[in-house]
């Protein structure tokens, strides 16, 4: 029996991860190069006016007027809180007038009556003293009352002032609020207006571009259909007024200015008829430049 021993060694390298990563790197680098390096930017300039056409109602694009920065509504300086009226200086406290000094008593003439006199004297003095005290008390009371009245009046005045101030404050607040509201509304209005203007101008530019483009198309179509007479000399100019249906169908052609070469005039007129329907922009407003009537100028050579 023959048996296969010693199987030969098979070496099969598995997929190499590093190679995969490198391959990926190559592609990413190439893609970046392609995207960053090659920018096929096509910039279509707006079609320029060619002198094939005349008196076309091309409404010029109104210059986009940047909305002028609205002056910040300057809030009026808040009215200075009226300086509180200085309270009148408190009246000087009424000082009770010092009681008049007791009159010097006459010296007793005699000693014996001195005692009696003394007694009487003391009684009188006492009475006087009491009187004096009563007077003083009355005066003090009066002063007290006066001070109190003044204080009350001042309090009242202060309260009144405070109330007035509060009222003024409220009014002011209300005014400020109204002004802020107004300014916000006007800002919004202006922004809206600016946006509308921008949209309108963009639209206008679009229409102008479409008009230019279709003007070129129409002239190319007519030019392609024109069979120039053999005896044509120079670059004569012929003008037509072409009436169009909204579909581009030519309804009527009127020559407004001959080139002087009837055969050439005829040829151009035939070409216009043959080109019917003329290509017209789908946009209604752009079409308004061509319908219902367009003035057409043709020269054999540009």
């Amino acid at each position, binding site marked *: 029996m023959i048996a296969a021993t010693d199987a030969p060694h098979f070496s099969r390298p598995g997929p190499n991860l590093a*190679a995969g990563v490198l391959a990926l790197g190559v*592609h990413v680098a190439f893609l970046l190069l*392609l995207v960053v390096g090659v920018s*096929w*930017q096509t910039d279509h300039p707006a079609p320029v006016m060619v002198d094939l056409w005349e008196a076309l109602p091309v409404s010029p694009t109104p210059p986009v007027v940047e909305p002028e920065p609205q002056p910040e509504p300057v809030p009026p300086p808040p009215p200075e809180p009226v300086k509180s009226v200085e309270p009148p200086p408190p009246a000087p406290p009424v000082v009770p007038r010092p009681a008049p000094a007791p009159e010097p008593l006459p010296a007793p003439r005699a000693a014996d009556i001195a005692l009696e006199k003394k007694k009487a004297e003391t009684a009188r003095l006492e009475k006087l003293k009491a009187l004096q005290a009563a007077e003083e008390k009355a005066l003090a009371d009066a002063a007290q009352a006066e001070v109190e009245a003044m204080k009350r009046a001042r309090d009242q005045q202060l309260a009144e002032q405070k109330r007035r101030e509060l009222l003024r404050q409220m009014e002011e607040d209300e005014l400020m609020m109204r002004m802020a509201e107004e300014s916000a509304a006007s800002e919004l209005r202006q922004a809206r207006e600016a946006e509308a203007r921008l949209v309108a101008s963009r639209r206008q530019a679009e229409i102008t571009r*479409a008009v230019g483009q279709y003007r070129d198309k129409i002239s190319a179509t007519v030019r392609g259909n024109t069979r120039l007479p053999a005896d044509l000399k120079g670059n004569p100019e012929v003008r037509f007024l072409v009436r169009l249906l909204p579909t581009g169908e030519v309804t009527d052609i009127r020559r407004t200015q001959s080139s002087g070469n009837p055969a050439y005039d005829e040829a151009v007129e035939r070409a216009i008829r043959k080109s019917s329907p003329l290509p017209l922009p789908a946009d209604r407003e752009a079409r308004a430049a061509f319908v219902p009537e367009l003035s057409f100028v043709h020269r054999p050579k540009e």
Partner: protein
Amino acid sequence: MNPEFGQNLSVLHLVLQASLPVQVVMALLLGASFMSWWFIFVKWFALKRARRVADRFEREFWAGGDINAMYQRVSAERDSVGEMERIFEAGFREFMKLRRQAGLTVNVVIDGTRRAMRATYQRELDGLESHLSFLATVGSVSPYVGLFGTVWGIMIAFMGLSSVAQATLAQVAPGIAEALIATAMGLFAAIPAVIGYNRYTHDIDRLANRMESFMEEFSNILQRQATKAA
């Protein structure tokens, strides 16, 4: 207004806008390109290693060491050694086996040894050449595939042109640009593949020459050994 008006014809945009067949072709080419680059790197590493290992082995072999000891070492680490070492190992193993059998002439022993070595050599060469056919295929076919995508894209662009009365360049330009990207991708896939294929075929040829020379020389050594012993 034309839809093409004012558009930015960036490459990515063009690729994404392309028609389905063109996109399929592009995807195919991208895959082919990726795979071919993968194999280019795989082969690059493998061949570099093979050359380095062969250099080392030849230095070691001709340094005049003990062949028996070398055989022991090589057969112990079969998985990590190079192509030439495996050839040497297969040849020497066969030689030892045949030597042990009595009554065989030197010629028979040497013929058997050479057959064993040649078998291993073929197998190793096959391993080295794997994936090279893929590179060759990508290199030769992907330009055609890219061209197909381009033709298709241009066809579609011109078909779209038939429906408009006034033919302008702007109406076909994006279509043609997108179609031409397919050709660019085909070339991008093909050029490295062709270069890699040629380069690696040459490298493998040189390695194969070295291995064949080694086989002959080793056979001579073994023959001398066998005659001496007989």
